[in-house]
Every structure is written in C-alpha cells, then in structure tokens.
C-alpha cells in the first residue's frame, strides 16, 4: 500500500464533476490528501488486490472463443513478450521516479504525452468546438425563424390592408369607383383575349377527339383564322382595340367572339 501515498487524492469529484462548466477543473477547496488509513478503505482495496491476483490464475477455456488449432510457441517469442512487459514496467517506474519535475520543466514529447498525446485538443478542434459553434449559431432555431417570418409577413400584410379601413365613406366611394373603372377597362380591353384563353385554349387538346360538330369547338385553335366563323364577326382580326360597342355585342354572344379572337 506504500505507493498509495505517492498518489495524492487530488479532489473528491462528484459523479459528474469532471465536466468543466465555467468553473475551473478542480474545486479550490479540495480536501487534503490522506492515506488509505481507515479499514473501510483498506478492506475493499485488499479484496480487490486478492481478486486481481486470483483472476490471473483463472484459465478461461479458449475453445469458446478461439479455433481448436495448435499454434506453435517459439521460445524466443515468449521471451520477447515477457521482456516487453517488463520493459514497460521499468519505463513506467523510471518516468514515475522523475515525477518530481515541475510542470514548467516538462517539455517536448513528455509534455505532449502528459497532455494525452494531444487527443483532447484534437477532439476539441475537430468535434467539440465546431458542434458548439453550430449550436450557438442556431440558438434561435432557423426553422422557427422561418415560420415567424411567415407570420410577420401576414401581419404586415394585415396592417397594410387595414389602413384602407378608415371608416370614411368618401374614401370608400372613391376606391369603389376607381376599382370599378379599372375593372371595366380591364374587361373591355383585355377581357376578350383572356376569356378566350380560358375557354378555348384548354379545349384545344380535347377538340381533336371530341365531336367536331359542336359549334363552339369546331373553330378551335389556329384553324379559326382560315375558316370563316359561323356568324360573321363585326370586327376584323386586325383591329387592335375593338370598340366598346363591339365588345358588348360580343359579350352577348360569345361564339363569334371566340372565332374572332382566335383569328387575332
């Protein structure tokens, strides 16, 4: 038990105290080192020593894990194995004796070895810090932000539209009139073409298979330009802006309108 005193108990860590958090690695008020003096400490250690010694003599039947095969054991190999083990112990002892060195004196590969061959730093650079940075960068959850943006957009739209709700009848009438004028203008100038697009264009595909006898579908597509419409259209295809009268007349009777529009 003599070496136990050479390994001072640095601190009584909590179960998970090894995770550093803002605080240093070691509590400042670490208890003083002491030997395993109490029987409550000696008894389990003694049992463990006995157990460890005894475990060495337990011969596990290899047939459970290894193939049943005779493997030659050259004496030189066995001796080399033994020497390696002893050399390792000797090296450890030698290093252990030089433990008196202060931290500042440990340089070169020893410092590197003492730092765990740099594995902590490697993991830190490769895994821990990138992950932490990623988590930190996305603290506010970019998916949530996207939904919040959607909600914000809807709210902005709501505010925009609710500005028109002034309760002023005059403004409502103005907006109503302006809207009506725009709507009428659109209906007069663009209406025929767009109506045509919605009524005739979807039928182009089906026109081929559907009965050609239908008066509405027969002029379908570009063929309408060559063939004369069933009813003579008042305006010609070259007229860029049909007058309101022709448009209204066309409105009453969509069929010639379709024929004329298709020509244009």
């Amino acid at each position, binding site marked *: 038990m003599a070496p136990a005193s050479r390994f001072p108990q640095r601190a009584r860590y*909590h*179960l*998970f*105290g090894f*995770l550093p*958090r*803002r*605080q240093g690695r070691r*509590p400042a008020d670490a208890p003083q080192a002491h030997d395993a003096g109490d029987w409550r400490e000696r008894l389990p250690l003694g049992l463990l020593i006995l157990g460890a010694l005894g475990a060495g003599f337990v011969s596990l039947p290899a047939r459970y894990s290894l193939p049943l095969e005779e493997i030659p054991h050259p004496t030189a190999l066995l001796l080399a194995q033994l020497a390696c083990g002893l050399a390792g112990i000797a090296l450890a002892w030698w290093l252990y004796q030089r433990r008196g060195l202060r931290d500042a004196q440990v340089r070169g590969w020893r410092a590197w070895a003492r730092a765990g061959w740099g594995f902590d730093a490697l993991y830190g650079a490769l895994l821990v810090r990138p*992950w*932490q940075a*990623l*988590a*930190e960068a*996305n*603290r506010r*959850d970019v*998916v*949530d932000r*996207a*939904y919040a943006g959607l909600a914000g957009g809807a709210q902005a739209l709501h505010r925009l539209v609710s500005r028109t709700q002034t309760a002023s009848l005059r403004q409502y009438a103005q907006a109503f009139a302006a809207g009506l004028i725009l709507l009428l203008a659109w209906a007069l100038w663009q209406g025929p073409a767009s109506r045509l697009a919605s009524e005739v264009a979807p039928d182009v595909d089906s026109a081929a298979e559907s009965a050609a006898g239908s008066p509405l579908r027969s002029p379908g597509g570009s063929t309408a330009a060559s063939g004369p419409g069933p009813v003579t259209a008042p305006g010609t295809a070259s007229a860029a802006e049909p007058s309101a009268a022709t448009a209204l007349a066309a409105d009453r009777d969509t069929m010639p309108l379709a024929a004329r529009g298709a020509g244009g």
Partner: protein
Amino acid sequence: MSALLPALPLLLLLGGAACALLARLGPQLARWAALLSLLLAGLLLAALGLSFELGALQSSAAPGFAWRWEMAWIPRLGISLQLGLDGLALLLCGLTLLLGLLAVLASWGEIHERVGLYHLCLLWHLAGVLGVFLALDLFLFFVCWEAMLVPMALLIALWGHRGLGGRSPAYAAIKFFLFTQASGLLMLAAFAGLAWQHWLATGSWSFDYFALRELVPDPAWGRWLMLGLFVAFAVKLPALGGHAWLPDAHSQAPTAGSIILAGVLLKTGAYGLLRFALPLFPQESAWLAPWAMALGVGGILYGASLALAQSDIKRFVAYTSISHMGFVLLGCYALQASALQGVVALLLAHGLATGALFWLCGALYARLHSRDLARMGGLAPRLPRLASAWVFFGLASLGLPGLGNFVGEILVLVGSFAVAPLAAVVAATGMVLAAVYGLRLISGVLHGPPRELGPADMADLRGAEVGGLLLLGLLLLALGLYPQPVFELADSAVTQALAAGGAP
C-alpha cells in the same frame, strides 16, 4: 366487457365536468375529483387489460383487437362510433392515465386560480387522447384529434408562463393550435379522400379502419392522401421542419401541460403513423421511407444540437424530445419489425422519462422561480432527493443501458441498420450527442459551486412527489431490463403495420 371501452373517455369527460362543478365548493374537491376519475379510468383499463388475451382473434377481421365496440353514428357516410383496444392501444392508454395522474399531482401545489376549469381542461384533453388511441373509425379519430387540441391550447394560454424573449403564453398556445389545426385539416382531407376512394371502388362511403385497410387507393391519389396523413402526424410527432410549435408550447405550458404534451401528446403522432399511415398506405409508405428516414435522422441531430444551446431548462428538455422523436420517425419508416418494436418501447420510455423531467423542471421552478440554466448550479447538496431523481431521469433520457430508452433506441438502430446502414450510423451519433446534452443538463443544474438562487431553506421533494417519481423510475427500469411484455403486447399492431406490403 367491450361496452367498457366508451366508458374510458366518458369517465374523464364526466370527471372533468364534475371538477368544474365541485370547484365552486372548494378547489381541493376539484383536485380529488380529477384524481378519482383518473383512478377509476385506470382501474377500468386494468380490468380490460387483465382479461386481455394475447393473439386474440388473430384470424378475424380485426386481428389483435381483444375488445371492440361499435355504434352507428352517421350511416349515410359510413361513419360509426367504433372503438377497439389492442396491445398497442392498451400500452398507450395506460401511459396516458398514469401521466394524467401524475399531472394532477404536479398541479396540486402549482395551480391556485380557476382550479375547476383547469382540471376540466386537463381531463377533457386526456379524454380526447384516449379517444385517439381507441378510435377505429377515421372520422371519429379526427374528431378526437381536434377535441384534444382545444383544452390543451387553453391550458397553455390561461395557466402558462412567459417564454423566450417575453413571449406570452397566448403566443405559444396559438402557435400550437395553428400548427396542429392546419396539419389536422390535411389529415381530414386525406381521410375524406380515402372514403371517396372507397365509394369509387364499392359504391358506398366508409370511414371504417378495417374496410379502408383492405382498400388499395388509386395510385394517382394514394401518394397525396398518404402525404396528407404523414404531414399531420409528422407535425404532431414532431419531425424536423414541423417542430417549431414544440419548444414554445412545452416551455410555456404549466407543469402538468408539459408532462402531458411530452409524455402523451407526441405519442399520438407516432401512434398515427403506426396505426394509420403505414397500414393504410403500404406501397406509398415504402416510397416515402428513404425521405422520412432522412427527416428522422435530421431531427435527431437538429434537436440534439439545439438542446445544447438552450438556457431555459424546459426548452432544453423540449429540444431533446425532438431528438428522441427523430428516432421514432426513423424506426417507423425502417419498416422492420424490430425497429417498430423499438419505436413502441421508445414511446413508452420517452413518455416516462421526459414526463418525469418536466415534473422536476416544474419542481425546480417552484423553488427557484427561474428556469435559467445559467443561473442554476450547485443544487445537489441543497436538494438531495431532487438531485437523485434529476440524475436518474437525465441518464434515462440520454439512453443509459438498463433503462427503457436504451432498449427503444438500440432496437430502432438495429432495425434501420438492416435497410439503411448510413442512416443508422448517423443516427447512432445521436446517442453520443444525447450523452453530451444529457450530462450538461445534469451537471448544469446540480454541480458546480452553490448559487444564491432560491431561498436558503428550500424544501426537498415531498412524499407524493417521491412516490410518483419512484413509480416512473421503476417502470423505466422494468422496461429497460425486461421489455418482453411490451413487445408481446405491441406485436399484433406491429405485424399489422407491416403485413400489407412493407419489407418482410
């Protein structure tokens, strides 16, 4: 015996009404009424469960359903009140009632305003959840789905806390409502589409689960209908992308609300996938599987990453839920029996462990009046019992072998490794990340130098709290050490989910 099935949700509905009435005489009466009706429902379920025959009626039209109850409702549209209890439903109903009991206990010292209305909302919500787990008529399922939504939104809005950046409880409640409602409408559209497909095929409408399971929908429509269902359940689960409601709702709800949200409500999404999305659309699900698994893996990593950056402990636990539900999604769409068994085990274990963690969060908040992780620390010597429970459930949540979560996660990984090795490998890193956030959660609250936060003479956990947590801990341990009964109970549902055409 089958007539007892509708009594389960009805008991809670009546119990809720009784709470609201009795609260006029005194708040304590309402609490006892809630506890009593939950206990009665629990006894009822136990009676049903004890007379349960495993593998009952394997050859019948409803294999695995030991108890069924049916009553005509809207015959013209093929809608009936149809309930059924199989092993999966039994497990999840049991979890619901257990966590419901604990939720009432957790509210005992926390809720002092409008106690009657509070317990009414709680019990009616749980009645809706029971209806979801029992319904075998798709329309009834949808009705229950919506019925459990409103009381929970009220719980959050009326008794909730302020959240991140001063967000009001109403914000969280409305967000929760909108997400679930919008995705629920997609589900209704998908159900109606299925009934319509049934009409096209047979000339009659039907919302009957078993009739629709036999139906092979038109391939042109099948994918859209399946996607409607998938989105509804994926938002509830939640999967990555539909999860935005969860951190707000979980962190701002009162303690009981958080317990129920995490422990029970998320399970309805997974249950929907297991019971409806997979068996009703086997081919379409196989088509979706790679994408859904990718979404699951993404959720695992995303939740784990965001959990680490949270300073609010309830938000922290909420994001770990997203990570765990990623495992559930991955397991569901691995379309493997072992993965689906793992999903069921994980659902139960997550309900127990996360429910307990939210309870402890509530206990911490009651003592410290703060949920800020940065201001906690050093609580282990001050609250030894709470600290032990926190360590235990924290370890359970990070998937310590021997506890339930580990069984679920490892089965999901084993099952999905068989079909998608890459997804399983990436998902397995999620277990490492779980250790990272789990240990940070534990040590951040308990270890380090003692802080001034909270009064000097804080009371540790009391008898009822210790008892409830001990029960949860023992159940987790049982699930972790001997999960076989759960596998046997869930077996018929798992077989049915895969029978129709998934991978063997």
